[in-house]
């Protein structure tokens, strides 16, 4: 037990954890949005995120990005990456909904069928990225996305430097951008759901689909909207992930998806602000656990925290709600 390390640099570990958790939070939004409206756990969402990272990788390779570019260029490529990732992830989420879930919904399939479809889809996308794309694209694939199935490195777009130091805790530019970007995306989404006409539609369908339909809300359109929104958030997470860790792999999604889903449950699944809180908390707990003992224990501690929280608050920290109560 390395208490000296943990408490000696508590601020530093907290900042590390928050930056780590910010990405969990953004992915968690996708789970929470879909669950809030459809009561469906979309396990394929982790692959929506992975597709985003591949889009970022592809775009950066295509434009010939090298390590540590000048600031203006970096900003441009970050925006380009964001656009590509949002498009790819949002698009994938939409395709998943249209191809897999909508036909099931039309036939009133029981919830378990949705669940198993989601897991199956997740595996299919992993293999499309790992096998089908390399086989069909051949050399182009390797040039753009590196060796199939192996961990692929991306160029470092922003060199990590301490931005400012408060009481011995230094916050790097990368951590700062990650946190701020995640908070801004979060705030935008929150505003969109709670303050706009479309958001009202989403909340209406979440509260009572039949009544919403009677009031003239197009349910299919609302459902497409939430899938796209979740996908775009995953795309933003993919960009931040690429900037922070600079790696991807076709099987990357499994662990991250599990963590993000945990974050969503921790905060209260179906609750947007809960996803943010859950994600950040999970990130911090993991870093604390890994520091205190070692990284093999971070998952154990994270899930123990989840179980304990659910024991006292079965619906998560902030409770389940998407428009049911005040979010």
């Amino acid at each position: 037990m390395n208490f000296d390390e943990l408490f000696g640099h508590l601020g530093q570990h907290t900042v590390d954890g928050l930056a780590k958790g910010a990405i969990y939070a953004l992915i968690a939004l996708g789970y929470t949005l879909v669950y809030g409206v459809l009561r469906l756990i979309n396990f394929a969402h982790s692959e929506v995120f992975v597709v985003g990272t591949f889009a970022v990788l592809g775009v950066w390779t295509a434009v010939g990005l090298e390590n540590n570019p000048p600031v203006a260029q970096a900003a441009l490529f970050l925006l380009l990456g964001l656009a590509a990732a949002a498009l790819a992830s949002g698009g994938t989420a939409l395709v998943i909904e249209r191809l897999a879930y909508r036909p099931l919904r039309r036939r009133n399939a029981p919830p378990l069928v949705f669940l198993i479809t989601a897991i199956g889809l997740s595996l299919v996308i992993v293999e499309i990225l790992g096998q089908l794309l390399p086989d069909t694209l051949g050399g182009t694939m390797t040039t753009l996305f590196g060796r199939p199935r192996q961990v692929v490195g991306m160029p470092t777009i922003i060199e990590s430097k301490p931005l400012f130091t408060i009481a011995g805790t230094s916050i790097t530019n990368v951590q700062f951008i990650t946190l701020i970007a995640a908070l801004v995306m979060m705030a935008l989404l929150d505003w969109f759901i709670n303050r706009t006409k479309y958001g009202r539609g989403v909340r209406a369908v979440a509260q009572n689909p039949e009544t919403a339909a009677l009031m003239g809300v197009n349910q299919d359109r609302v459902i497409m909207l939430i899938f796209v929104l979740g996908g775009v958030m995953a795309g933003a997470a993919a960009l931040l992930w690429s900037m922070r860790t600079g790696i991807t792999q076709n099987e990357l999604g499994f662990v991250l998806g599990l963590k993000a889903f945990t974050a969503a449950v921790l905060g209260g699944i179906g609750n947007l602000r809960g996803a943010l809180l859950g994600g950040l908390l999970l990130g911090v707990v993991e870093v604390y656990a890994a520091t205190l003992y070692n990284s093999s224990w971070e998952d154990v501690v994270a899930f123990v925290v989840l179980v304990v929280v659910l024991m006292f608050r079965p619906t998560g920290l902030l409770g389940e709600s998407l428009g049911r109560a005040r979010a």
Partner: protein
Amino acid sequence: MRRKYVRALSTTALAAVMVAAAGCQDTGGSTADSAKCGGKIAIFGAFTGDNAGLVIPSLNGAKLAVEQHNTAKPDCQVTLQEFDTQGAPDQATPIANQVAGDQSYLGVIGGHFSGESDATMLTYQAAGMAMVSPSATRIDLSQKGVKSFFRVVGHDGTQAAAVTAYLKRQNAQKVFVIDDGSAYGAGITAELGKLLGPLQVSTDKIQERQNQFDATVSKVKSASPDWIFYGGYTREAAPLVRQLRAANVTAKFIAPDGLYDTAFPEGASGGAEGAIVTCPCLPADKAGGTFAADYQKKYNIAPGSYGAEGYDAAKIFLDAFEAGKQTRADILEFVRTYDKQGTSKYIKFDANGDVDPTKVVIWAYQVKGNEIVPLEELKIS
């Protein structure tokens, strides 16, 4: 109507994708119908997956040996059947049962990793099959009393000693030691820790498939070492070294053969520059005979890690077939008493199935760009 059409289409598309994804798992040679000479052997290892780059040269080396043999001896055809385990013990076990149960297999090359070798050695022993590993280096593999396990590579005790000697020569003061908890990584790291003694300032353990290493990076920064040792494979090492460098950790990075794979520098995007990788395997041009040239000609790439060892492992079985051995028991006995100059080293197994430690040569390689180039031979003392 339209709904039905869409549904049918999407189902078909999904099915097609799944079939496409499930296909092309392994490519086997053709079954040779041989009368007195020749036979069938199996080779298993991580031919796809995270750490395949480490194993592919060995597979190619073995294929090269078999191909040369079959060309030279048309009346003594040998079939080499590939089984991809992705390096995972749980995938290697059913394959071991399958191979052991199929009497047409007379011997097996593998495992390539320590974990999968450990998980399958008892199965192969029970079936009376000789198992020759080109690259499983964990020390205790040969010390479990399994009489059918052999390896044409030096074990991690030798490698750890070479790393320790190298670090001392480099005047290392503080070594931070990290491992991935795998059979191989934890094994060699523990061995190194014993040898390093007080030079080892601190340790950390990460887990397989981990992507983010904030806590490890913080610990390394607090310990401010001048060297970092990592026992494990490419999948975790690439992001780890990259994140260490991003956090401005300048300590030198050294790792054993698990990282002798160009996917390591590629995955680390510049972070691995200058890293030292040791390996009980020879640089291609130092291997005996025409192996390096033949390999280069066939695969259009230099043999990387364990190419020569894979070739040697196959050669042992080929020699057995040529000597007219046709049963598992005869072949096992042939391997046990094998005594011959190989491509990588002189091959003669001791009672445990290890090669003579004095014949084992450890080399240090260095990462330059996306290449891993030979640096120097490591002396143990």
